[in-house]
């Protein structure tokens, strides 16, 4: 079974839970930017959390299924149409052979996810089906989908019908004002006290420069401590000897426009990181659209671990285990 792509949408890629273990050679974890939404869609479609989905950014694709299929659409609010007729998000959609699926405009957020029973069945590359476009690796031929692509769908596991729907309390929320929790560290000692205060007390506006690699924010300038730069570090006080970048870490090149790295992060570089978004808030970051008013709130490692445990509990609740 397969999906025939009639229109690809703006940037539609195959993603799953990502690939760990290759960051030491520059291959990022990848995977669905909003892991929770992708997981919910899989749960409704009758999959496990591991099946690959289509991640659709802003403008969705138009496609035709070659055989009967069960799909579910989760993530950012969007009109879903089957053969031109409106259908619901967050429910099981049963398609007949030849049915055509299309989407309206997003009503918030950035990305929605199409899960299909059996999962998108592209080959595993380094243990994952996720697309890493910069390296032309994984996913569908290492790239975003194009018109004319025939995207394979895997055989469905017997017995799993999927959830009838998703408790609204479990669904992602979309807001124009967002608090993101960060753990300060890495090179935070290189900022002046005033500089750190500026980072943590200002409201930052997400710029349109936001993609799978990272998100850039506009706001006031942030002060770095002047210093005699160490050998090999580069001339600006925000420069360090090129080092590994934590996923979720925040860098402030030249003291302007902080950048938070996301799942397709470049694995290293020469800008000092001063804080890192906690793992439990990475999906929130992924959902935020340009213009979102964002505050970075410092928490302790203990807080970060508690938030992580809460998310895990939510996961257990979803899957009933």
């Amino acid at each position: 079974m397969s999906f025939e792509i009639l229109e690809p949408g703006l940037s539609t890629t195959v993603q799953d839970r990502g690939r760990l273990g290759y960051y030491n050679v520059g291959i990022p974890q990848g995977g669905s930017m909003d892991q929770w939404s992708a997981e919910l869609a899989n749960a409704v479609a009758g999959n496990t959390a591991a099946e690959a989905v289509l991640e659709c950014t802003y403008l969705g694709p138009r496609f035709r299924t070659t055989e009967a299929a069960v799909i579910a659409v989760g993530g950012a609010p969007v009109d879903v149409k089957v053969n031109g007729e409106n259908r619901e998000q967050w429910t099981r959609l049963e398609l007949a052979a030849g049915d055509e699926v299309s989407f309206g405009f997003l009503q918030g957020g950035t990305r929605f996810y199409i899960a299909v029973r059996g999962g998108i069945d592209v080959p595993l590359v380094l243990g994952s089906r996720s697309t890493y476009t910069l390296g032309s690796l994984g996913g569908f031929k290492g790239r975003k989908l194009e018109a004319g692509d025939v995207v394979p769908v895997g055989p469905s596991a017997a017995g799993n019908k999927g959830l009838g729907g998703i408790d609204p309390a479990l669904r992602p929320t979309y807001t124009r004002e967002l608090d993101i929790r960060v753990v300060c560290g890495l090179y935070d000692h290189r900022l002046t006290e005033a500089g750190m205060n500026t980072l943590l007390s200002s409201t930052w506006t997400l710029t349109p420069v936001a993609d799978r690699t990272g998100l850039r924010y506009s706001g006031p300038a942030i002060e770095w401590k002047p210093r005699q730069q160490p050998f090999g570090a580069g001339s600006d006080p925000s420069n360090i000897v090129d080092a590994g970048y934590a996923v979720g870490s925040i860098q402030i090149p030249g003291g302007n426009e902080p950048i938070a790295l996301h799942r397709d992060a470049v694995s290293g570089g020469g800008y000092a990181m001063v804080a890192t978004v906690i793992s439990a808030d990475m999906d929130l970051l992924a959902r935020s659209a340009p213009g979102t008013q964002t505050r970075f709130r410092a928490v302790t490692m203990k807080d970060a671990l508690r938030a992580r445990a809460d998310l895990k509990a939510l996961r257990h609740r979803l899957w009933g285990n």
Partner: protein
Amino acid sequence: MSAHSAESERLKGKARYTWGGDEFLFIEIDEAMSLAANFKANSMAGMLSARALSGISDVCPANASLLIRFNPDVLDPEELEAVARAIEVEVDAAEHQTLETRIVEVPVWYDDPFTRETGARFRSGHQSPDGTDLDFAAESNGLASAAEFISRHHGSPWLVSMVGFVAGLPFMFQMVPREQQLEVPKYLSPRTDTPPLTVGHGGCFACIYSVRGAGGYQMFGLAAAPIFDPAQRLEDFTDFMIFFKPGDIVTFRPIDQDEYERIQRQVEDGTFVYRQAPVTFDLAEALEDPQRYNQEILERLNVV
């Protein structure tokens, strides 16, 4: 000869441990780049990987630091830090600081038309708007000409001090005393385009761009053969799609257009193989008499 250099003595017990959120431990060996700091980062990474602790997914040695990704549900952060600190003590105490690695010859077409043309498209805002990246690099290092810069560039071997930024991109540090290091400022505003396999330079680091894309390093030439091969077509990529590993030693060999095209044909028909030989790299020897030691390493290539 002492087994420990003054440089590595200075770094003993000095690493800084800090957290990148709840999934990353970052260990800075030193603020400044040096062969000794890189060696320590690499050694610690090697030992940590060898422990194969469950809960650790990525151990990423960098130039003068390392980054470790872990799952705090499986491995307690405090326990991880304790293990890493114990490894630091062990690395600091090691009698012989050696690394089993290899030397690789990388053919480069210096001052090629592809990087020249790309450079010409990004002159606006460059430190040298009317010149070339090579002229700027020569001038920055007080050298008389681009030709002299090129000859210094391939005159001594380089150590791969980090692999990353994007898939398979090697950062390289020239194995010469600090006062002889080539240093070139990065672009003031990064390019949006770089030809794949561009040989670049920023700060004290050389790199080879593994994929086409953005870049901020000055561009000097083109490596003739792939360093990242997702299809794993060539023999050097049978085991893995990425060629370079931290600790590799690289010597650049200047080639002309004819040889570049000949290598291109070998790559196309799948017969290209990098010239390479195993090396036991000894830090103390490398620091004591770099010129003699580099010569010794280079000669390994002649016996294969």
